[in-house]
């Protein structure tokens, strides 16, 4: 067993893990954060995407022991003070999901996109979603939600700056 200390959704976590524990197993099985999903064995589906030190990564492809001192944010950590994150709100408004299995990963991935590129084109959103497989929506409303979120966040920034 190895000890690892990290921060998950703003709270300090100090746990014993087997070295072969994946980050997603630590989140789901030890910390009961089951919003992060597992959809494949091959690191291809993106259902497990979380943020590590602000970057989107596949939590099924990182060992928990690698994360000493890291800051991890999962879908449970996005809403602030009971208010949905603008991306979650946009998925709700634009109906950007059907079964919802892929949704936590897609939301975490696209939040990272808007941090790097605050006004992506439709093509850029679609390309960014390369790592997230959705079997239900055909992506159409996902893309609409991301574009709408980008617009609202920019409008929000503008009014906040006034």
């Amino acid at each position, binding site marked *: 067993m190895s000890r690892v200390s990290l921060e998950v959704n703003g709270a300090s976590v100090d746990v014993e893990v087997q070295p072969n524990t994946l980050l997603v197993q630590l989140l789901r099985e030890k910390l009961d954060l089951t919003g992060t999903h597992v959809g494949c064995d*091959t*690191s*291809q589906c*993106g259902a497990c*995407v979380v943020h590590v030190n602000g970057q989107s990564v596949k939590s*099924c492809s990182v060992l928990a*022991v690698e994360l*000493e001192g890291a800051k991890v944010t999962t879908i449970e950590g996005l809403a602030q003070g009971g208010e949905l994150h603008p991306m979650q709100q946009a998925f709700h408004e634009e109906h950007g999901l059907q079964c919802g299995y892929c949704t936590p990963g897609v939301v975490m991935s696209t939040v990272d996109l808007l941090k790097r590129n605050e006004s992506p084109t439709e093509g850029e959103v679609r390309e960014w979603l390369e*790592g997230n497989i959705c079997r239900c929506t055909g992506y159409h409303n996902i893309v609409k939600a991301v574009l709408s979120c980008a617009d609202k966040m920019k409008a929000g920034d503008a009014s906040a700056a006034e």
Partner: protein
Amino acid sequence: MQDFAYHNPGSVADAVAALKGADDGKFLAGGQSFIPVLRLGLAEPSDVINLKGLSDLQGIRDGGDHIAIGALVTHAEVETSDLVKGALPGLATMAGHIGDPQVRNRGTLGGSVAHADPAADYPAALIALKATVVTDRREIASSDFFRGLFETTLEEDEIITQVKFPKAEKAGYGKFASTASKYALVGVFVAKHGSEVRVAVTGASARYFRVAAMEQALAAHWSADALDGIVVPPDDLQSDMEADAAYRAHLVGVMAKRAVSAAG
């Protein structure tokens, strides 16, 4: 996934010592090839030695006639590096087309090169750009480095520290990606070094290869049109459910032209 002992060394010497001391040790970098391999039970190492604490393997430096990229530099860092975009824009574009954003946030240059997947993108760039692989003990020309399917000249306990990419006059990449994995069905990297041209192909066959007829045609006249009529025989190319050998042979021609156009 079978359990293993985990090591997090702070120096190259300690990492090599940890590997030497293990029954069946393996290095870990970004984990984007190695962790899926572990999850599928295709490897069961006794010890896993994380290289990410080795600061010597970080960073992108301007070496005058070349760019030196540390083995731990991620695909996303190469994609967005001003230094790489300025000196070798074709290399930055290539890095930006590896896998997906999450793979690019973790996956590293050293891991890609050491893993030597026959459909990986970096090997074509290393061969065409006449890059040098630098390890903890020697320098290896890219033309001698890759041996075949997932095989390189690296010794079991040898660590790639950086790769030096000469600043070619022109460099470009054309990739036709698998829709499922994003690996190259065919990827062609072209580079012009003065009067010499190199055309390196990945994904098409079990081994990376160069196309001499294309190199000669481009050396005589640098333009996509110069490749008209040059065909690669399909005999040694891969056939699978995504593309048969004849289609891959056709794609080599199309991707080579796109690479030349992209290089400008």
